[in-house]
C-alpha cells in the first residue's frame, strides 16, 4: 500500500519547489543522504558508460552486452583476489572469454579477447592518470550555498604483487555495487547469509542455497579484507597500541571468529556433502557439488586468515624488544611521522605543498652541475659505439651416455600383439586361442598378450570417452577356466567395443 501511495505523493510535491522559493536549500542534513546516494549512483555509471561507448569502437560491437561483461569481470576479480595479492590480469581475461564468446558465437576469438580486454581496461580506466573515475555532483552547504564537488572512485585497482607484478583488486565501491549491500555490518551480514544457507539446505532447496552460498563467499572475501586492514593498523603501532589488552583482545576475538566460522562452515560442508550424496535429481547433485567447492573455498580463506593472525604475536614481541629495551638516545630527534606527515596530510593542498617543498629543497641532497667543453663534446660524439659481445662463451658439448634398453618387450613384439588383438567388433575370441596363436610366432609374445588382456578386463572407458576414441578393447570373465601350459586363471573373452565418437562429442559440449 505504501509503495503505491509513494509515487503519487511525489507527483504532488514535484511542482511544489516552484512556489516556496523562500527556502531553496533543504539543509545539509537532507543533502547528506542525497550526496551518499549520488555517489552510489555514480559507481554504476562506468558500467552504463561501457554500453554507450561501445558504439565508438571501430567495428560492430553492438551485440556485446558490455555492462554484463563488466559485472562478470568485477565478480571474477572479487572471487579470485587472494588475501595477499589480487587477481591476475591475464587470468581474468581468460575467464571472461567464455561469456564474451557466448554473446557473439560467430565472431572470431581475437575479437572476443579484444572485448574482454577493453572492458577490463575501462574498469581500471587506464587512460586517466589516477586510473579512476570522477563524478561531479552538487550539494548545499550549511550556509545554503550550492557547491559542486568532485567524487573520485575506482572500481578495479591495480596493486603491486610479488616480483613487481601487478595484480587487480576490486575496491569497496565495486564490492558494494556488486553485492548491493551498502552500509551493512559485515559480520552480521555474514552470519545472516550462513544461517539462510543452512535453512535452505535442510529444506532441500539447493538452487537458492547456491545463490546464498555465493553471497556468503562475497561476504567472506569482504570480511577478510576488513580484517586485513585492521591487522595492518595494529601490527604497526607497537607503542601507540595497547599491547597489554587491546591487541591481544583483538587477535583473540578474530581467532575466535575464525574458529567459529570454521566450525560453522565444516558443519555446512558435512550437510551439503550429505545432500550431494543423497540427492536423486542430477541437477541438485551438481549444485550441491558446486556448493561444496564454494564452502571449501571459504574455509581455505579462513585458514589463511588464521595463520596471519598467529604470526602477529611473535612480530609484536620482536618489535617490542627492538624498540622498548634499547638504551635511550643522547639527543632527541624529530618525530617525522607524528610531527610532519600527520599534520601535513589533512592540510589543504596549497599549504601542504609548502611544507613538502621545504622538505624537498633540503632533503634531496646535492647534484653537481654538468659543465661541458666543446672539445670533449666533439670527441664524445665522434667516438664510435663500442660493439657489444652478444654471444656468450661457447657452450660445452654435452657428454651423453646411452642408457641400456631394459624393456621386457620390444617394439616389434608390441606391434605383433596389437595385430593379434585387433579383433573385429562382432567376433570376440577366447584368451586361450589368442595365447596359442601368439606362442606359434614368438615364445615371449603370450606374456604380452596375457598382460594386455588382463588390462582390458578393466578398460579405461572414461579416458577413451574423453579422447574421443572409436574402439576399445575389453575382456570379460564368463567363468570358464583357462587351460594353458604357462598361465592359469579365467579364460577371458576378449573383444572390441565400438564407441559412438560423434555422439560423445556432442554430449560433451552440450552441458558446458
Amino acid at each position: 500500500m505504501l509503495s503505491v501511495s509513494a509515487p503519487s505523493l511525489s507527483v504532488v510535491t514535484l511542482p511544489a519547489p516552484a512556489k516556496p522559493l523562500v527556502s531553496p536549500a533543504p539543509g545539509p542534513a537532507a543533502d547528506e543522504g542525497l550526496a551518499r546516494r549520488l555517489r552510489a549512483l555514480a559507481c554504476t555509471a562506468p558500467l552504463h558508460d561501457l554500453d554507450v561507448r561501445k558504439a565508438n569502437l571501430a567495428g560492430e560491437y553492438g551485440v556485446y552486452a558490455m555492462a554484463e561483461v563488466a559485472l562478470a569481470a568485477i565478480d571474477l576479480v572479487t572471487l579470485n583476489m587472494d588475501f595477499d595479492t589480487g587477481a591476475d590480469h591475464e587470468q581474468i581475461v581468460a575467464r571472461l572469454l567464455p561469456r564474451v564468446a557466448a554473446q557473439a558465437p560467430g565472431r572470431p576469438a581475437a575479437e572476443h579477447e579484444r572485448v574482454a580486454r577493453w572492458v577490463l581496461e575501462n574498469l581500471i580506466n587506464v587512460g586517466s592518470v589516477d586510473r579512476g573515475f570522477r563524478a561531479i555532483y552538487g550539494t548545499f552547504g550549511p550556509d545554503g550555498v550550492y557547491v559542486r564537488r568532485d567524487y573520485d572512485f575506482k572500481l578495479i585497482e591495480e596493486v603491486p604483487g610479488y616480483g613487481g607484478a601487478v595484480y587487480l583488486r576490486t575496491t569497496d565501491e565495486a564490492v558494494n555495487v556488486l553485492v548491493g549491500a551498502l552500509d551493512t555490518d559485515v559480520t552480521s551480514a555474514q552470519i545472516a547469509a550462513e544461517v539462510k544457507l543452512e535453512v535452505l539446505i535442510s529444506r532441500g532447496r539447493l538452487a537458492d542455497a547456491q545463490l546464498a552460498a555465493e553471497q556468503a563467499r562475497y561476504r567472506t572475501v569482504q570480511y577478510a579484507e576488513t580484517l586485513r586492514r585492521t591487522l595492518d593498523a595494529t601490527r604497526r603501532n607497537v607503542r601507540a597500541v595497547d599491547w597489554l589488552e587491546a591487541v591481544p583482545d583483538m587477535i583473540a576475538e578474530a581467532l575466535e571468529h575464525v574458529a567459529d566460522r570454521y566450525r560453522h562452515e565444516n558443519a555446512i560442508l558435512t550437510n551439503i556433502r550429505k545432500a550431494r550424496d543423497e540427492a536423486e535429481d542430477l541437477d541438485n547433485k551438481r549444485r550441491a557439488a558446486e556448493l561444496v567447492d564454494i564452502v571449501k573455498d571459504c574455509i581455505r580463506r579462513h585458514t589463511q586468515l588464521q595463520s596471519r593472525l598467529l604470526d602477529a604475536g611473535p612480530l609484536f614481541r620482536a618489535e617490542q624488544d627492538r624498540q622498548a629495551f634499547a638504551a635511550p638516545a643522547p639527543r632527541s630527534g624529530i618525530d617525522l611521522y607524528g610531527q610532519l606527515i600527520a599534520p601535513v596530510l589533512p592540510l589543504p593542498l596549497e599549504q601542504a605543498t609548502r611544507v613538502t617543498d621545504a622538505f624537498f629543497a633540503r632533503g634531496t641532497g646535492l647534484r653537481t652541475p654538468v659543465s661541458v667543453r666543446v672539445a670533449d663534446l666533439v670527441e664524445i660524439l665522434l667516438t664510435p659505439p663500442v660493439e657489444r659481445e652478444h654471444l656468450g662463451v661457447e657452450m660445452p658439448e654435452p657428454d651423453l651416455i646411452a642408457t641400456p634398453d631394459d624393456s621386457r618387450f620390444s617394439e616389434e613384439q608390441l606391434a605383433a600383439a596389437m595385430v593379434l588383438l585387433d579383433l573385429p567388433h562382432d567376433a570376440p575370441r577366447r584368451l586361450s586361442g589368442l595365447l596359442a596363436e601368439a606362442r606359434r610366432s614368438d615364445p615371449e609374445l603370450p606374456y604380452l598378450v596375457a598382460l594386455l588382456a588382463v588390462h582390458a578386463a578393466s578398460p579405461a572407458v572414461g579416458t577413451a570417452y574423453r579422447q574421443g576414441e572409436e574402439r576399445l578393447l575389453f575382456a570379460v570373465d564368463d567363468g570358464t577356466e583357462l587351460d594353458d601350459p604357462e598361465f592359469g586363471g579365467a579364460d577371458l573373452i576378449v573383444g572390441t567395443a565400438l564407441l559412438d565418437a560423434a555422439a560423445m562429442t556432442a554430449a560433451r559440449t552440450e552441458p558446458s
Partner: protein
Amino acid sequence: MSDHHAEAPARGEPDAAQGPAPAPGGAAVTPADAADAARLVAFGLQPKLLPARDAEYAELLRRYREEPAFGRLADAVATGLGLVVLEVSPRAGMAVAADEDSVFAVRMGDYARRTAADGGDRFLHGLAHLAVAALAFPRPEDLADDGYIGRITVNGVDSFVRQTCRRLEERAEELGENTDPASDAPGLEAAWRVYARRSATGATKDARRLAGSTTGIVGKAAAFLTESGFLQRTGDDSGGTYRTTPRYQLQVRDMAGSAAMAELLELGVVPVSDGSATLLPPPEGDDLELAADAGLPFHA
C-alpha cells in the same frame, strides 16, 4: 689565496687557531693547503665516495679534524661554494648540503617535469621524500641515534602513506565531513585525498613501473636519494629495498626536518611533541607484509 688565509682564521677563533696551527704545519696556511681544503670539499661533493675506500680522502679528513686552521679553511671553501657543512667524520665523510640558492641545489622543476603544471604532482613528489625519511627513521630515537641504519622498501612507503590517508578518510567519514573538493578550487582539496586517489601502480606496455603511480613516485624518490648517496639499494623485493647512510640521517636531522617544521609552524600548525609515549605510529611499515609484498623495514 692570501685573502683566504688572512680571513678564514680571523673569522673563527683567532687566538686558539693561530696558536696550534703553525705547530704541525710549521707555517701559516699556504696555497697548497687551500688546494687540499678545496680537494676535501670536492670529495664531499661526491656523496657516494666512502672515506674508507680512498686513502687520500681519509688523510684529508684526518687533517680536518686534527688541524683547526685547515678545518676552517675547508669550511670557508664550502661556504663560498654555497654549501653547508653538516659533519666531518670518518663514517659520513665530508658531509655537505647545498644551500637553497646554491648551484648544487636540486630544483623541483628539474626533478620531475610534470610538477610545474600540476600542483598535485608537485605535492606527491615532495611527500614521497618526506615519507621515505619518515619510514627510514620511524622514531625520534632512530633519527637521533648515530648508529641507526634505517631500512625501507618502495612498496612499504607507499602502503604506509596510503594507510594514513585511509585513516584520515575514515575519520572524515566519522565526522560526517564531505571531503570532495569544490570543482573550481582544487588547491583547497585535502592533501591526503590527492595521494589516496592516485593509483598505487599500473600495468605499462614495457613492464616498467608506471611513473605517475604512487609507487612510481616513491621509487623515483628512492632512486634519486641513492644517487645522492643517502640510500643504498640492497635488493629488488617489494619494489626495491634500501638502507640509509649516515649522510641521510644528518641531512634529515639537521636540514630537511627542521626546514619543513619551520614552514609548518609558519602556517600556524603546531605539531604536538610530548616526547615518546603517545607517539603516533612511527614504526609504521609493519603492515606491509600484508599489503602485497611490501616487506618489513626492520626485519628484512
